């Protein structure tokens, strides 16, 4: 069963200068996921001000500067893991060093229920 662990962070988390200790912890977390054989893929995202929004309505492409103004938290990164069940996914979410400041959303992927 594949789960996405989506890291949601407030704007302040992106504004802060890069913390070397946190970066090292993040790297170690990625290596642990890999070593456990559960990592499918993962990525960190650039800050919210780099966001561009695209929609196509009535065949017309519209491009806007993002992110959504009303959003309080922004996606900062994601990891996709393959584990047997939700409890295992929650354990990995809690181990993410970002969990101590950010919120980790755990969502199963479509189409992997039997996997």
């Amino acid at each position: 069963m594949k789960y996405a662990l989506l890291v949601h962070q407030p704007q302040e988390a992106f504004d802060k200068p890069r913390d070397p200790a946190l970066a090292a912890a993040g790297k170690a977390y990625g290596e642990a996921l890999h070593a456990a054989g559960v990592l499918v893929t993962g990525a960190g995202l650039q800050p919210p001000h780099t966001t561009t929004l695209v929609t196509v309505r009535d065949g017309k492409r519209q491009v806007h500067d993002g992110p959504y103004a009303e959003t309080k938290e922004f996606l900062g990164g994601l990891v996709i893991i393959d584990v047997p069940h939700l409890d295992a996914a929650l354990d990995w979410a809690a181990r993410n060093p970002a969990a101590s400041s950010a919120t980790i959303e755990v969502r199963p992927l479509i189409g992997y229920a039997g996997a």
Partner: protein
Amino acid sequence: MNDSATQAAIESVARNSYGRLIAYLAARAGNVADVEDALGDAFAEALKRWPTDGIPEKPEAWLLRVARNRMIDAARHHQVHEKSEEYLQQITEEAQTVATTHDQFPDERLKLLFVCAHPAIDPAARTPLMLQTVLHVDAARIASAFLVSPAAMSQRLVRAKSKIRDARIPFRVPDPPEWDERVSFVLDAIYSAYTTGWDSLAETSSTHHALAGDAIAIGRTLVQLMSGEPEAHGLLALMLHCEARRDARYASTGEYIPLDQQDTELWSRPMIDEAESLLRKAAGFRRMGRYQLEAAIQSIHAHRAVTGDIDWPEILLLYEGLVRLAPGIGSLVGRAVALAQTGQPAAAVAALDEIPEGRIADYQPYWASRGHVLRMLGQAKEAEKAFTRAASLTDDPALRAYLFGQLNC
């Protein structure tokens, strides 16, 4: 046995077997909803047939046979051969083999209880889900007990079951260090069924009364399934102590009677004895917890039936422990009352004043207790204000009348 006792015995066997089957099948299918659909009819059929045919020797095998026939009928009728349906049929066949070859059908209800009270399930759905899956309590009755429309309750339950299936919440018994927290979720969900059944009941034999009975039934199952967990014993002891006083809570003319004035002759001796024995067993494990402390407090109240008075210093001691372990609004108010009863009304008011504003706004026992404590201090005017506030916060007419009656004392 008379007819109603026979009926109750049949229902109890049917519910037990049903719960075991749901747990066993759902654990393998990872899916509660489909399994319930398959077994629901079989359960209804059992309640119809068993009173005349007698309880079958292997109730689980009987239920599975009916369920399997229904599944095959349904498959023919719909002409669908979905993968999930085939899988369900397959595990039902396997369960049938287990049911016919084993003396006792395996009991995996503990896994089901942990799923119902899983932290990933909406807290408002946990207790209803438990009542529906483990005891097969009618959804309409659950809705009425929780004061929501049947449609809203059904939506809440459907959503929870979809979550179990789609997010793949595992049917497993957690290990330490997770165990303590996860057990507390299970205990809280059961206790919530009990208090929902307890809170508003002027009329006995209501849906609420039945719900309290359901909670006790799950509590008993839990003690069987977790025979080494002192808090499971504590919870059942607490519920039995409260339940023992059901007939003494209101006068025959309907007036509310506070605990310390109840006629102890009306208390149920067998329930008190059972509660006391459970508490002793729990104490043997030497691991204190919230429910054991709460049950111990009720045990001291129960002791009034023997000694004629209430050991308030002991109650205060227990509340001190409870406040450290579980500083809920109930234990904070209880501790203040115990302070007042041990001759420290000023300390009691101070303790009440310390409770944050946001937690007391709609909590009736806080204002009733405040009224009593202020009256002890001779602050009649302030006491009246508190009693009036308390009276305005209850939905029980008898309790409201009692609280208004305090104004003229």
